[in-house]
């Protein structure tokens, strides 16, 4: 993966929450800390492999649902509740990925990548049961493509003018029907 990939609308990941996403069959947790910064990590606790997206965000840490191991914004484990006396070694770390937020969208990116989208208004994210490489959208409507897995694509739809959100929403429903009918 070289080009940044949209993985969520910003509004769908409010502070202190996490969601799980998939890009080309790789699973990621997208979470936002209490300060409002979004993070994209490997969706796997190093302890027992539980999905971190099922965990809890508390301040600037995300805690695993399973045994409560807590990870700071740099991905390093900060606390193991069952062993509060243990100085946690730096080697217990979750894989982190470049995260960019632009245009009301959260992007999975390499650390050197930038995304420069003008502010947009979110409409919806929509799963399509088809491989989608490109979409021809009406003027003022932006569709960002997230390849999920073979035969499955997530589309993140935004508009430049908020008054066009409803028409874009209806257009998107028709788009999904057309894309899935073509497969």
């Amino acid at each position: 993966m070289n080009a940044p990939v949209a993985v969520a609308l910003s509004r769908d990941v409010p502070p202190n929450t996490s969601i799980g996403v998939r890009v080309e069959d790789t699973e990621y947790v997208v979470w936002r800390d209490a300060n409002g910064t979004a993070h994209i990590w490997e969706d796997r606790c190093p302890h027992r492999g539980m999905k971190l997206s099922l965990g809890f965000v508390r301040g600037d840490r995300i805690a695993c649902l399973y045994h409560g191991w807590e990870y700071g914004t740099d991905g390093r484990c900060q606390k193991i509740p069952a062993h509060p006396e243990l100085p946690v070694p730096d080697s217990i770390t979750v894989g982190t990925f470049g995260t960019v937020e632009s245009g009301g969208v959260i992007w999975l990116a390499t650390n050197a990548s930038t995304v420069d989208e003008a502010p947009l208004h979110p409409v919806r994210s929509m799963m399509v049961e088809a491989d989608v490489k490109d979409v021809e959208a009406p003027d003022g409507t932006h569709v960002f493509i997230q390849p999920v897995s073979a035969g499955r694509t997530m589309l993140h739809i935004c508009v430049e003018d908020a008054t066009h959100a409803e028409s874009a929403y209806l257009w998107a429903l028709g788009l999904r029907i057309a894309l899935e009918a073509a497969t």
Partner: protein
Amino acid sequence: MSFGKSGVMEHQTLVFDGALEPDVFLAFCAHRAQRLSIDHEVLGHSPAQVEVALRGHATLIDMFEMACSLGPEGSVVVSTSRSAA
């Protein structure tokens, strides 16, 4: 590597007995040791037994033992034993 003032370093030898796939099991051991900042040395291995020498924080060695007891897919650990190295 430092574990701070509360760190308790231990030297332990662990023996895992069972039906093991040595290559896979040893790779699993190495990965867990790296993750837990434990120095480890393989003292011997066969499809029925793996013996490793460990140096690290006592709690982390406990975690290592538990993780390796569960083991990778294809390996079944029936028993473990340990002794101070």
